[in-house]
């Protein structure tokens, strides 16, 4: 009874907190859909005006396209202005993958290459599932690659693209298309993940003459030129270092999540095999 009352009071607090959060936001923060508050300044000056900029997001919306050359402001914030934060996220993912590998090491060490399943379509799963996975996997990979490569032009970016591609890996696992050589698969993926993180940090150090993760390529006269202000079609070779960072993050996320999935999947297989062995012994 006491716990029920306590949980009810906590729920009331939560709802009240939500209301307190929502009510002032109606007045102080601009509504979604109208990003810039004083449109007059925006229209007159057109670009690159730092006066009359009251808040951080107004600054990003006005100067982001000019400074980074990216049509997608979200990507320019994630990979340029807050690039260090993104590096931290990548490191967190890397540590998570390492710790999972460490935890499952005892299980997976026993059967390095012992899983000798049939290559190709396995009889254990329904034909429909495995064929559908086989057909859908390239489409998902292409969509993920598009998200990664076009991250600075259209909605998307490294994290989303990597996650989408990793869900393709999950599909392959469901369709039992990765049955052999899981150990080698994980090793290759691990190498690529580490390489991607190193590439991210390397790009960061390349701009060190000004600052860590400085977007040194986004200058008008360089190879990676910036774009004119306002809505435009956009070039793939714009936005300076953003596409490279996006690619690095995408590869890292894809490989990391794939390692986790393959390792966990092999855990279930290992359990089954142990059960079989026990049955045969008894």
């Amino acid at each position, binding site marked *: 009874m006491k716990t029920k009352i306590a949980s009810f009071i906590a729920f009331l607090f939560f709802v009240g907190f939500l209301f307190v959060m929502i009510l002032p936001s109606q007045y102080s923060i601009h509504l979604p859909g109208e990003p810039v508050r004083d449109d007059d300044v925006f229209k007159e000056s057109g670009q690159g005006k730092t006066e009359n900029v009251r808040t951080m997001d107004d600054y990003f919306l006005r100067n982001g396209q000019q400074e980074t050359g990216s049509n997608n402001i979200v990507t320019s914030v994630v990979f340029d202005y807050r690039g260090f934060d993104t590096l931290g996220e990548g490191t967190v993912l890397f540590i998570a993958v390492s710790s999972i590998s460490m935890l499952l090491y005892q299980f997976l060490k026993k059967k390095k290459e012992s899983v000798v399943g049939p290559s190709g379509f396995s009889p254990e799963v329904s034909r429909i599932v495995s064929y559908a996975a086989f057909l859908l996997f390239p489409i998902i990979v292409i969509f993920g690659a598009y998200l990664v490569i076009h991250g600075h032009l259209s909605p998307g970016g490294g994290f989303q693209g990597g996650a989408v591609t990793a869900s393709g890996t999950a599909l392959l696992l469901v369709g039992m298309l990765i049955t052999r050589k899981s150990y080698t698969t994980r090793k290759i993926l691990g190498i690529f993940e580490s390489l991607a993180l190193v590439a991210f940090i390397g790009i960061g150090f390349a701009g060190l003459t000004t600052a860590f993760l400085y977007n040194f390529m986004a200058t008008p006269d360089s190879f990676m030129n910036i774009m004119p202000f306002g809505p435009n079609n956009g070039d793939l070779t714009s936005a300076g270092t953003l596409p490279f960072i996006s690619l690095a993050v995408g590869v890292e996320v894809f490989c990391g999540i794939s390692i986790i999935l393959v390792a*966990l999947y092999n855990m279930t297989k290992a359990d089954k095999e142990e059960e079989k062995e026990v049955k045969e012994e008894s």
Partner: protein
Amino acid sequence: VVILVAAVVSLLFKDLLASVVTFALLSLLLTIVFFLLDAPDVAIAEASIGAALTTVIFVISVKLTRRREE
């Protein structure tokens, strides 16, 4: 509203596999909401991570442990 219903139902299910499926449904609805709120970035992330990856990981963990909640 449907999202809230899905969340509550996924909490109440004793069968953990059904709970996982409801959770995936929640993620899918949340994706639509994000898209309607003009945030396609977040919608893509939610669709891939919420609807696909967490579902797979939960299904694997349900397989490794018991299926029923006690």
